[in-house]
């Protein structure tokens, strides 16, 4: 029970209701001819946490910033009512706003590394509010800074006060950021995606902290795209879509019985606890497939290629393991002679036609493992085998011919495209690598047809062919990336955080696509991610990585239902669930 509930119960019936920490009626914000926020109304009591949830572009961040008068240059803000702790802030002058910012309302942004001045010690950053709004002298300010740091749970504040944000860990940084916003104990705290850049375990700690702050009486306006995070500490949830609030209610109401289609869509897209193979996103109508005749030509070409490549493998000893890692070790040398064990004695096996999910937080070594699997880096010791044959042990010249059997899907898909090329050229090149006939232009038509077929496979329209990847949306780009990976008809797809940069609903579409493709093309998938929900949804087998080692493996059901290793248990306990 939150402080708000307690207050409500304790107050005698008929007594004056507490002054709302925040009251907004009919807020609209526009930039030029574009209206970004339409008719938003909110009310927040002290000690209550209201969460605004929405996807990017829904207007939630602009709403939050408008509540501080920081909507941005050229913003036209209008509202029937806009008040902080009972005092109206409509049409305030800039200097009047400045008096209120930091004192009556605090702001916590995403990613403390960018939200705290990296060149200044955190003590200074935190002390700024004190300097601006109080008359405390230097020594008193320092004392208060240490108090605040202790209050946000930073151990040994004296130790860390003089450091810069870059010298602290992710969790410590975020606490310092929260401390900076709370230095003057404002009645309202606005947190815009405060946990998005954090590891799951650290996220849980920060959420605990926010809960504590709320229980002490501070009202919190929490902005997030993540329904699960929000359901943990929000007393009420407001769903925003296209600048409007489309649904409000308690977490039970909104998440348990959503009424608005937008809310339902967002809920359906969350992969946590969704069984393997279930659809996350609604089906979208796809283009009719291109003329069958051309497809057949191309198909024949590529089936021939693939058989040729496959017969390079000895079929008799055909292993049922698509990809296998055996005792891999990789260390990196740091700038001051420090040694970093990125990957230590890692072994994994990906059965044919299945999905192996490798999950770990940042620094766990999962990306290095992906690079080892792709043979982009050489391991210090250990081996990777592909379809039962040596893979990492081969010299690059020999391995090159087999690379067409492995496709890769990347997190930063835009960076993986040559910036000078259009979608057509990217795909055409990818097709040409796999088929020499197409490469030397003798079978141009087949190449073109193949490109068309690839686009169709990933659900994209041919109108996108002549665009540049920078002109596409995040979801479209990743589909092109998948299309490129499929160009050589690989048997194995290695996906390194393929959906981490996407909105939940777009993520859902891409995950569905990967699932579909896996079934149609009998692909074996190595899926690497930090997102436990995603891993649970897509994987048959799971391997949990921590500090360069695999601490637990097993089937997805096993690991998620009954984890044996303490780290896995801690990880799963920290994941916010949707109720």
């Amino acid at each position, binding site marked *: 029970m939150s402080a708000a509930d307690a207050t409500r119960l304790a107050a005698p019936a008929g007594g004056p209701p507490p002054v709302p920490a925040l009251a907004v009626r009919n807020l609209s914000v526009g930039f030029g001819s574009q209206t970004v926020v339409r008719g938003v109304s909110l009310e927040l009591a002290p000690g209550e946490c209201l969460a605004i949830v929405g*996807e*990017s*572009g829904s207007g939630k961040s602009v709403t939050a910033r408008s509540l501080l008068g920081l909507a941005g240059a050229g913003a036209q803000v209008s509202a029937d009512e806009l008040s902080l702790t009972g005092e109206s802030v409509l049409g305030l002058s800039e200097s009047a706003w400045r008096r209120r910012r930091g004192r009556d309302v605090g702001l916590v942004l995403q990613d403390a590394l960018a939200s705290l001045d990296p060149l200044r010690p955190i003590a200074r950053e935190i002390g700024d509010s004190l300097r601006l709004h109080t008359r405390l002298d230097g020594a008193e300010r320092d004392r208060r800074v240490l108090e605040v740091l202790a209050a946000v749970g930073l151990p040994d504040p004296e130790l860390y006060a003089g450091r810069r944000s870059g010298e602290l860990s992710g969790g410590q940084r975020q606490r310092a950021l929260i401390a900076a916003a709370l230095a003057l104990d404002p009645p309202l705290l606005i947190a815009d995606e405060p946990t998005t850049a954090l590891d799951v375990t650290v996220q849980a700690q920060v959420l605990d902290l926010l809960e504590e702050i709320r229980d002490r009486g501070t009202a919190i306006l929490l902005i997030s795209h993540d329904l699960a995070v929000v359901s943990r500490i929000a007393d009420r949830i407001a769903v925003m879509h296209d600048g409007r609030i489309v649904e409000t209610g308690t977490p039970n109401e909104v998440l348990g019985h959503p009424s608005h289609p937008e809310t339902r869509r967002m809920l359906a897209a969350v992969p946590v606890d969704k069984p393997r193979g279930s659809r996350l996103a609604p089906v979208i109508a796809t283009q009719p497939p291109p003329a069958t005749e051309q497809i057949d030509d191309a198909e024949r070409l590529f089936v021939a290629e693939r058989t040729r490549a496959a017969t390079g493998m000895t079929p008799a000893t055909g292993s049922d393991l698509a990809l296998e890692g055996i005792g891999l070790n990789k260390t990196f040398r740091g700038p001051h002679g420090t040694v970093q064990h990125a990957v230590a004695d890692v072994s994994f096996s990906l059965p044919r036609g299945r999905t192996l999910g490798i999950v770990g937080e940042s620094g766990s070594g999962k990306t290095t493992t992906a690079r080892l699997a*792709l043979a*982009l880096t050489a391991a210090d010791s250990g081996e990777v085998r592909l379809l039962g044959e040596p893979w990492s042990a081969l010299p690059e010249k020999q391995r*090159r*011919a*087999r*690379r*067409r059997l*492995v*496709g*890769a899907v*990347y997190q*930063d898909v*835009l*960076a*993986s*495209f*040559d*910036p*000078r090329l259009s979608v057509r050229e990217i795909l055409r*090149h*990818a097709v040409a*690598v*796999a088929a020499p006939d197409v490469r030397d232009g003798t079978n141009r038509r087949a190449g073109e047809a193949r490109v068309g077929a690839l686009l169709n496979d990933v659900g994209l329209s041919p109108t996108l062919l002549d665009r*540049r990847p*920078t*002109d*596409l*949306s*995040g*979801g*479209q780009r990743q589909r092109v990336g998948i299309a*490129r990976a499929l*160009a*050589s008809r690989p048997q194995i797809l290695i996906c390194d955080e393929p959906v981490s*940069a*996407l*909105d939940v609903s*777009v993520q859902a579409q891409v995950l569905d696509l990967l699932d579909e493709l896996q079934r149609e093309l009998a692909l074996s998938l190595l899926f690497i991610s930090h997102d436990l929900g995603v891993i649970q949804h897509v994987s048959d087998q799971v391997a949990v990585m921590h500090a360069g080692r695999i601490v637990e493996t097993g089937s997805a059901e096993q690991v998620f239902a009954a984890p044996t290793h303490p780290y896995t248990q801690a990880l799963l306990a920290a994941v916010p669930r949707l109720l």
Partner: protein
Amino acid sequence: MSELEITAAASARPGDQDDQQDGRPGSPSSGPRARPSVVEIAAGLLALFLLVAAIAPRLLAPGDPLAIDPLSAFGAPSWSHWFGTDESGRDIYTRVIDGARDSLVIGVSATLIGLGLGAVLGTVAGTLGTAVDFTVNRFLEVLFAFPGLLLALLFILVFGPGAGSAIVAVGLSTAPGYARIIRAQLLRVRSSAFVEAATVQGLGRGRILARHILPNTLAPLLVLGTLGVGQAIVWAAALSYLGLGAQPPAAEWGAMLAAGRTYITSAWWMSFFPGLFIVLTAVCATALGRAIERRMRHA
């Protein structure tokens, strides 16, 4: 680092990484179909004017640049002589227009030499392995210890003054700067994600080099060259001004400035107008270079 390197670093950065989740098109002030600004239009017109001056000077200045008229020597700017006359009565406007060819030829040649040499050095450093890279780097470092004009002066010391010397001198002085830019770009491209993606696809090193690395590395050359021409003209003119480049009575702008130096207090127009044209050319080149860079950055 030189001025060009800063600009090159800017043009090498990928376009704005605002995550376009909903496929919002790029802003209208950049990209291949960007609207030209007033400054760019003006720069374009000026460039056109200079080109015509270089190719067909008589179109813009029908008089005879060598026509001596001692009676009207040291004439201030007037309707008959827009830019005044010099110590021999020659019309300065005509000489300035004539000088365009000399100055542009010198500037463009010097830039081509510098770019060519620099591109070769930079590419060699970036592609032939660490030992070569280290050696070339040390070599460049030494050259950089001769700041600005000094290297050019050293060259002139050895080979004597003259327009030809000036071209080679300026070219050699600018080459290390270009080499460093190209090398940095090459290294950036080599370690980029799309080159890795090409490796994963199974492309051989040679194909990757030819198809991905080199085109992306040499892409900023156009911008660099345009910016460089402005700088080269200024430097060559500086050498001429010091008496070490093109010699009078050549109508090269720097030489005209040198000749006008002695009369600075009495006939300021002799130095002012040639100098003005040098500045205008340099600014024009900068504006054009940036215009190209803006369009290429989001292309």
